């Protein structure tokens, strides 16, 4: 057994054993970490692999969250059936939203793509705010609980862990597939890929839909542990969260954004419990991150490893090309 396999087994064992060492509160936080890890990794399929900076990714977190909330509150299905439908419904509806938004957005690149995704997300925000009969308006949909036996926090943790693990496995298969390598090539030089006969727009759209579907699933997982969904989920600040998480963890690796999500969520809990100026702290963390460690935590880790093996520090580690 290689060291890598041993590491993976140890991580899996730690995640399975986690709820037994934690209070109910921290079990809730762990579910939040799982949901946001999936959200950040799905976002990084676009940014880290496809070179597409989406500034409207909260749209899909919100659509998934509202879908889950409506399913639990309004559908009237028996608990077991609700649970079985939940992941598929959330993914299907957010994939549909991603298809429509993507059709218009993937025509542009760079900051213009970011603005387009931003525009559609704000449109959805306004709809969530105003379509009161469906979305509960300003108050949102409250009093959500996981159906049936999952109302127990530890049971819900395992449900969330299973969904996140399967999703991350699928996403990993996607980025290591020929499609995933085409995405990377698009990030490096889209024009050249186009000359090779690849339909650039179709590939970008496919990545956008896959990413949106998994972000929707993350929204569904988070909605039920959070207990409510409200328009703030679709606000523009919510679309910056996955960018912060992905960059904090490191956009150059598959699991980097998941690490970033875990650190972000735990920091938020710890700091906002002690001071009302969590936004100020987060702003300072972001500025330090951007100016001093743009490769993120995984980048720092790799740098430390290189130094320990006697390599030359300060060599650019990133294989990403500037866009």
């Amino acid at each position, binding site marked *: 057994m290689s060291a890598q396999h041993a590491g993976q087994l140890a991580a899996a064992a730690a995640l399975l054993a986690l709820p037994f060492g934690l209070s109910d509160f921290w079990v809730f936080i762990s579910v939040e970490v799982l949901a946001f890890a999936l959200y950040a990794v799905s976002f990084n399929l676009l940014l880290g692999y496809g070179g597409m900076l989406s500034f409207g990714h909260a749209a899909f977190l919100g659509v998934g969250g509202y879908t889950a909330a409506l399913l639990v509150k309004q559908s009237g299905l028996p608990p077991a059936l609700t649970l079985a439908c939940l992941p598929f419904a959330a993914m299907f509806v957010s994939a549909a939203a991603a298809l429509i938004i993507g059709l*218009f957005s993937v025509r542009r690149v760079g900051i*213009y793509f970011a603005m387009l995704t931003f525009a559609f997300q704000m449109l959805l925000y306004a709809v969530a705010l105003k379509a009161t009969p469906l979305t509960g308006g300003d108050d949102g949909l409250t009093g959500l609980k996981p159906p049936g036996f999952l109302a127990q926090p530890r049971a819900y943790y395992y449900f969330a862990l299973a969904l996140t693990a399967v999703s991350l496995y699928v996403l990993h298969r996607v980025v290591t597939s020929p499609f995933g390598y085409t995405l990377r090539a698009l990030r490096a030089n889209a024009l050249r890929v186009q000359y090779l006969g690849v339909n650039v727009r179709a590939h970008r759209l496919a990545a956008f839909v896959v990413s949106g579907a998994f972000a929707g699933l993350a929204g569904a997982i988070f909605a039920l542990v959070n207990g409510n969904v409200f328009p703030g989920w679709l606000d523009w600040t919510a679309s*910056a969260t996955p960018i912060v998480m992905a*960059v904090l963890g490191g956009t150059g690796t598959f699991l980097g954004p998941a690490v970033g999500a875990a650190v972000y969520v735990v920091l938020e809990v710890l700091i906002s419990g002690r001071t009302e100026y969590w936004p100020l702290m987060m702003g300072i963390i972001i500025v330090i991150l951007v100016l001093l460690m743009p490769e993120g935590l995984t980048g720092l880790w790799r740098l430390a490893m290189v130094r320990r093996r006697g390599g030359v520090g300060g060599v650019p580690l990133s294989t990403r090309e500037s866009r």
Partner: protein
Amino acid sequence: MLELIAQHFAWAQNPVVLARQTLAGISNGMLLFLISAGLSLIFGVLRVLNFAHGALFMLGALIAVSTAALLADPLAGFAAALIGAAAGLALLGAAIETNLLRRIYRAPHEMQLLLTFGLVFILGDAAKIIWGREEHSIGMPAILTGGAHAFGLVFPLYRLFLIAAGVIVAAGLWLTLYRTRWGIFIRAATMDREMLSALGINTRRLFTAVFALGAALAGLGGALAAPVVAVGPGLHAQVIVDAFVVVVIGGLGSVLGAFIASLLVGLVNAFGILAFPSASVVLTFACMAIVLIVRPRGLLGTIE
């Protein structure tokens, strides 16, 4: 059915309502122009989308509140507030550009976006620490209160003043951009920064100046808005979203586009609230989405 629709749009035949909403729409559009002109100018030259621009607008309003309180005479206080807000924000803008933004011009887009996004939170909380969480307001100088009577209608004077101020700033901006040496440099920088710098122009100083100018316009906008809005910690969030809508519709980097789109968004807001009271927010974003779908670069934007 038709009667219902006619009833719903009955306000459209009421000249008082029409005049009031038009005036409100245009004057709010002018405030939007002050903030979006800077946003657009900064993007055009620095290629950075400044998310903190709404926070700069809010700081302008707060500085205006504090400056106006220093002087006993309301008119002098108001004039000092306008000058103080613009000057204070120009200094802050120059400090932000030289200490922070300058380091990330070559970084990927997400880094630039994150840096200005981080600034939103820092400036927002700094404002809470300095000015508190409560909402402030300043009075209008006596000569700008009341209304002007014309065509049997009453027009609030301050609204007319806002429109005049907007037009004066727009004209000043146009003169700066098209009739001065710095204006030529700014317009050249939006086309090709490398070429400009190769021709021996000090682009570092130009970038600082443009960011300071954009920040000063936002500060002036905040000060002008101070008598008609609640000046508090939540002010920047709504303002930046509106300003984004404006620059996206007008075309990133185009000041004239920002002017046209500001009027458009101001009027859509003013009449949207009458026509579709429950969906007026949706209307502006729908406008933005439609413009982007039909003409992705915005009304007057250039292709990247």
